[in-house]
């Protein structure tokens, strides 16, 4: 996929590694400095008996933290995650999960804006025209996505129309086997979207794979003036990618698949190439977040390029530090490319060892 020659790409990869190492040192200094770090990490370092500011010099050194446990993000007090350096800033709490039990929380001040402003630079203007209005047909409530997409629209000079959508209710319906009720709820969301699309001149939208399918069963998005669809939230297979491009949207609507979550932010897709056979290849927003593909039985070991492994996330922003978090996904490891000189991930899907216990395809 790369257009750069091999030595040129190697030089870019090396430069990005050096930038990442410098970024790591800056983030570690921030999070473990008693003046700026958050209570959680300062306590953690005290109990661990070692000072990350002295021992972490580069990205590889983050292995010393072991794997981040997502249970740490559940429950209160949530202010333990707010860096002292941001104590006087207005704080958002975004939640993930929570259909049963306590959700995971991520505290944010500006990260969602920064992530989506960066993402905005990857969107083609002809498909997502500046100044155009958006439809946010995705989860509402305490979800980061709802505010992030609205910010994306505003950042690009538009307004975002939103719907009410509670994914926790949908998960409960599915777990109870009430598929008909779940279908009715989906139609309720689609009805809200149709009302917005009929009354307003909307050109861009965010939605999830299932809602995109449901919406396209009702209308031809191109005829409604939609130019670009930014899609994410649940697994997308290569077959879905092809189906979306060839049948749901057609040649006049751009399809931008993404992979993301509340803890990472947003990984953008590499422009599809014929030789990829509709594989969906994502690159994380380095150095703010990194995705790696590791041996499930030894998460410290990266698998070779092209091999399958478990997704490991490291988030490195001044608002959030999440080292070596093992996602519930698997994929193939993708080599750096011209546009993204760091590791990517190919065909992300639910981790096969967990598949029986994961309810996917919620909204």
């Amino acid at each position, binding site marked *: 996929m790369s257009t750069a020659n091999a030595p040129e790409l190697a030089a870019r990869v090396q430069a990005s590694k050096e930038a990442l190492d410098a970024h790591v040192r800056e983030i570690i200094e921030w999070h473990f400095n008693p003046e700026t770090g958050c209570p959680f990490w300062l306590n953690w370092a005290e109990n661990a008996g070692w000072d990350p500011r002295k021992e972490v010099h580069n990205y590889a050194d983050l292995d010393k933290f072991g794997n981040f446990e997502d249970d740490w993000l559940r429950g209160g007090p949530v202010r333990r995650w707010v860096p002292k350096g941001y104590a006087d800033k207005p704080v958002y709490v975004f939640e993930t999960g929570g259909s049963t039990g306590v959700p995971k929380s991520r505290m944010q001040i500006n990260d969602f804006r920064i992530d989506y402003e960066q993402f905005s630079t990857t969107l083609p203007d002809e498909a997502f025209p500046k100044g155009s209005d958006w439809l946010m047909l995705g989860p509402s409530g305490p979800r980061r996505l709802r505010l992030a997409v609205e910010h994306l629209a505003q950042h690009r000079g538009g307004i975002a129309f939103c719907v009410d959508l509670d994914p926790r209710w949908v998960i409960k319906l599915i777990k109870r086997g009430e*598929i008909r009720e779940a279908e009715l709820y989906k139609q309720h969301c689609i009805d809200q979207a149709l009302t917005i699309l009929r009354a307003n001149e909307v050109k861009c939208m965010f939605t999830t794979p299932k809602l995109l399918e449901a919406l396209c069963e009702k209308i031809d998005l191109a005829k409604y003036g939609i130019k670009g669809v930014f899609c994410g939230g649940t697994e997308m297979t290569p077959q879905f990618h092809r189906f979306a491009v060839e049948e749901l949207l057609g040649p006049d609507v751009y399809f931008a698949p993404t992979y993301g979550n509340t803890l990472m932010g947003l990984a953008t897709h590499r422009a599809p190439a014929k030789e990829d056979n509709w594989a969906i290849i994502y690159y994380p927003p380095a150095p703010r977040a990194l995705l790696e593909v590791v041996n499930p039985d030894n998460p410290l070991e990266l698998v070779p390029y092209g091999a399958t492994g478990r997704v490991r996330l490291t988030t490195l922003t001044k608002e959030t530090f999440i080292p070596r978090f093992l996602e519930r996904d698997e994929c193939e490891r993708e080599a750096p490319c011209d546009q993204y000189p760091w590791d990517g991930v190919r065909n992300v899907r639910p981790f096969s060892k967990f598949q029986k216990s994961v309810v996917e395809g919620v909204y």
Partner: protein
Amino acid sequence: MIHIPILRQGKPYKSIDVNRAFHYRTGEQLAEISQANIGLIRRDLLKQGEMQAALQGFTTRELIALAKKAAKHFAEDELPLGDSMQSPDDIVKQITGTTGSPNVMVRRNMEKVRGVLDSMETVLSGLTRLPDLDMLDRGYGEIGGRALSFFPRGKSLGVILPSNSPGVHSLWAPAIAFKTPLILKPGGSEPWTPYRIAQAYIKAGVPPEAFGYYSTNHGGGGEILRQSGRGMLFGDVGAAKAWSGDPRIEIHGPGYSKVILADEGAKNWEKYIDLIADSIAQNSGRSCVNCSSVWTTANGKEIAEALAERFAKIAPRAEDDPEAAVAPFASPDIARRISAMIDQEMDGAVDLVEAKRGTPRVADKDGCTYVLPAVVHVDKSHALANREFLFPYASVVQVSPEELPDCLGPTLVCTAITSDRALQQRLLANNHIGRLNFGPISTMKISWDQPHEGNLFDHLYARRAFQSVLETVA
């Protein structure tokens, strides 16, 4: 490599997602099968009206004639299989390869499919009981001076198919003659037969638009049942339970088919022992119409011993051996688990076949794993009294005549060998019995002029009140 595509209104579609089918013994890959994503299925099923319209231009008689031609194509011709062609011998080897069913059993089942296609007029007459099938084209008619009218309950029939026995395809194949398009989800290891039936119909002249063939995952199967006008599901107890409340879906779960012997029938049991053995063991016991328990008012122990004597002679044979009487399991692990489950539930009972054979129930031969036949003699409250497994298995249960038929429970096919009129009346009145045979008739025997395992016509059509005054309305 053979590739089996999705059929979207008859048009082949190669998916990026594929499943692979392997030979049960050698592990050789035999085919890759395109997998349909749920959205694609939903999108296609928005066009059920078009699919139905493709069949509306035909009369029932024309479709019966096309079915007859399809029978010939199915049994004798090379037919498209993805990008390649498939001969009748090819499909026998392919089904054996992916299911383990010996060639001789596959051929028997293929003949069953051919039979239903070839006998379509008889089948339709049996299902509808109409003296004049043209009434289906007109939508109304008269019998004995009384007006009758029928209307289709849905625009298509979605069928979730099993892998265990290709004979079940004879149940849905008549839908085309009833002008009902088919949305088929093949079983994971038996993608072959439904694809070939569709191709045989298409070659005969049925519009390709009438056929949807979607190999897909569990969610895709659910979507087919939800979106199709009418549905038919072959599955285990769990799958059957999940859809049991939906009147649009005809469920084919375990059959728990039975042979009953009472009064003279029980007394003269030796006369019927071959028929009982055939009901239990034909098709390696894999069909829901296989007898899985024998209920008798006398001589239970003797009957069980006699069955065991016969079944002890059944041994694994090569897949192309015409004498092969038991099929290996594609998954050795499943074979061992089934056998272990029976052992755990014995509770003092004995597998009489195992005792006579002198070797374990699970046998390995030439890299294949078999579960050899089992017979237990138990009382009606025993855990193994009314069970069904994917191999030749039967319990023999002795009860008093008065206990019949209330002790039987759900029974797909019941063969009752008795001259006790009162018992016959009780059997006729029993609402748990799907098909009732009086006299020495194998539970496996299907009469094409009788509805079997549900009435496809009643499932696809409903009767409406109808009156007409035959005058021109000015």
